[in-house]
């Protein structure tokens, strides 16, 4: 095995990584490089190093093939501006909540992330309900109005500020709650993780088994955890949590 040969196969791995709808079972070459990754630790290490250098994390699964999870700073990542072109950064932050809600709806229990056969089916309405429920918990615990400063308005207010779906609407809006969820789901579908299956309840989505790898990477991302929970350096202001154990205003 020469260096050039190895590099060629690394390139093939990247080639297949960019085609998320294909599976190793359908292509001999795909199957070959995936098997090589799984069997040859040296090749796997070289591939991992290459992907890491590009700001990517690769999960190689025998059945699902290569699943790429991009780092937040990788130039090869999908950026939020591509998803929502005509919106302010404030509106874009809602997308993060929707992605988490999709993951939560597809895998309501942590153990489901380990089930290679799990194909979750969920509807747009279910994702909207998940977010509504979570936001409502905050709304009930909160006694005052949002901050005047746009930057400091909590995310649950942002979600609740989106209009609810109009029943019997002639045309779907892309900016109400189901509209935003559908937009995000379509993005995840473009990345090969979801398949659209009909229009019931605003849209029916089938999560391909490879989604669990991406979600597992998210769940294991300690930086993300720190950011979201207000533990990251530089995020000075405390997270505003619903007062579940303290009376409002009665904190010691």
């Amino acid at each position, binding site marked *: 095995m020469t260096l050039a040969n190895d590099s060629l196969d690394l390139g093939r791995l990247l080639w297949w*990584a*960019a085609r998320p709808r294909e599976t190793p079972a359908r292509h001999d070459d795909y199957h070959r490089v995936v098997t090589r990754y799984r069997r040859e630790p040296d090749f796997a290490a070289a591939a991992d190093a290459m992907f890491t250098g590009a700001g*990517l994390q690769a999960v190689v699964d025998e*059945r699902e093939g290569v699943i*790429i999870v*991009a780092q*937040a700073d*990788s130039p*090869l*990542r*999908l*950026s*939020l501006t591509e998803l929502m072109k*005509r919106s302010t950064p*404030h509106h*874009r932050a809602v997308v*993060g*909540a929707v*992605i988490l809600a999709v*993951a*939560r*709806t597809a895998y*309501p*229990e*942590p153990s489901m*992330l380990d089930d*290679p*056969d799990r194909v*979750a*089916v969920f*509807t747009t309405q279910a994702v909207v309900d*998940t*977010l509504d429920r*979570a936001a409502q*918990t905050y709304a009930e615990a909160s006694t005052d109005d949002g901050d005047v400063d*746009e930057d400091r*308005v*909590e*995310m649950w207010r942002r*979600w609740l500020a989106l209009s609810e779906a109009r029943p019997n609407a002639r045309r779907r809006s892309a*900016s109400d709650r189901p509209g935003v969820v559908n937009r995000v789901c379509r993005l*995840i579908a473009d*990345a090969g*993780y979801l398949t659209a299956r*009909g*229009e*019931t309840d605003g849209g029916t989505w089938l999560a*391909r088994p490879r*989604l669990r790898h991406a*979600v597992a990477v998210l*769940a294991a*991302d300690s930086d*993300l*955890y720190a*950011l*979201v929970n207000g533990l990251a350096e530089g*995020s000075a*202001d405390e*997270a*505003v949590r619903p007062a579940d154990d303290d009376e409002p205003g009665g904190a010691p």
Partner: protein
Amino acid sequence: MGRVHAQVRCPWRSVVLPAPRRGRGGSAASVGASVADTWAAANELAEWAIAIPTDDGSIVRRRRALAPIQVLTDIERTKTSLDGDFWARYDLFTIALAVIDQVALAMGISAGRSWDETIEYAAGQAARQVPDGHAAEWAAVAERVVVSLVTTDVETVPYLIHTPDGPAWRAQRFRLLYVHASSDGTEHLRASEPAINIFIDALDLDIEAAQVANEAQLRALIERGAIESAVTIARHARYRSIQFQERIRRIVADTLIDPDTHDWIETVPALLDAALAHVAERLDNESMLLDAVAEQRAGIGDQSRLSLTNQLIEILRECRHRHNELHGHLIGARSRLRDALDDRFVRPYRSAHRCSLGPDLLEPYLGRSTVDAAAAAPRLAAAVGGLATRFWPDLAVLVDELCAEPRTPAEGDPVEEPEFADADERAWWEPYEEAVESVLDALDEPVRLSHVLARLADAALADDAGEPLDLDLLAATAVHAAHRAWAPRLAGRGAGESLIVGVDDGQTIDSDAVRSADLLLVPVVVAADIDAPVQSERGPGASGDPDLAGWELAG
């Protein structure tokens, strides 16, 4: 079941029911009637009192077994809130039952019905229920039923169980149908154990014992020649085989996912051994039953009985086939478990700590301020966006590709429908047209175009995303709309319809942005039906006083 006279002592929360009278136990009427006198003579009858706590084992089992029924009822009950007025004509409950049945019968160890096949089947059933409906209706009904059955596993049903420390709440997460990915990358639907329970009117039973009992029943019925009853029992036996198959498949799959959750040194091998022995015994018995039926068939002359016998043989053969398949699956299970274990030792397993998606990520995320969340959002989008950057080929190739004819898929290739840019998003000019339309529609007296322009400028309208509308564009849209009203199309309008007619009386607007005739916009009501295109010498575009005959001013 009918007569339970033991007193159950229960220190915890309990429901105390008066004892049913001896001999009439179980009937609701007798319980109701005895309430008054039982309580009057409570002391005497103390030893008769039954206390059934809600966390009693048998109640818990029934609660769990009845949960799927709740889902089916909900499908039927919630249909009134759906879009469309055709739902009342369909019975979603029976379609749901039929779908589960179809899916269950098609299940093997690794196969099942595909999503599209299932939708097609359900649509066929909808068409049977309402033959004069539309195909789109049937498809909507079919999709609604299948989606409702498949998405149930997001729901949990809480119930109370009895523990040594008193009653405790447990959540049951169940599913009726689920999508299963097979090794070749295809997906198909399968029915779960609780779903199959619906078909064998069993609330909670040991499958293995029930199978043995079924066979005994079958043998007795076949010996007596009661073929009709035997067919019914054989159907049940078939469901039990499917259910058993599903349970074994689940246990093996769970063990493969995480060998640590099961004791693979003792429990799992014992379970596999027991399952193997059970299946081997079933196979023997089914062969004997088949022989017995075949013997009987030789002596049957009656045509209908003969066809029933054939049906029975077919079902028995299918059961045997399933057990054969299961037998093969069980024999292979051990080596697959060993492989999974090897794999587990080779690579670090779940070495990183995973936080839970709901409480650790989603909920705190919603509590963050916008600016903090905006810092985390790109990270999330990057994680699920895959490899997003695409490189353009050079221009010559690109032009060729864009102009190429669509590729005809070869045999066996998936047919990929061309995807066009999303039409979901509203075109940018639509908010403008809507704004102008709403102002014009609200007119109840003649108004000049210049006034309309001023009104629009003052209204400070915004589009869907909350961005203010551009005033120049708004003015242009209004001028265009007004000039369309100057030459309105009248053909095909009926009496009583109202519309806006623009009248040019010679005045003009000449501002920085707009130079045009200052039309007088007059709301009118059509007085008579206009069938043919209006034959007018002046033509609809003529200026000056339009012919107002046939119109009357509104307001």
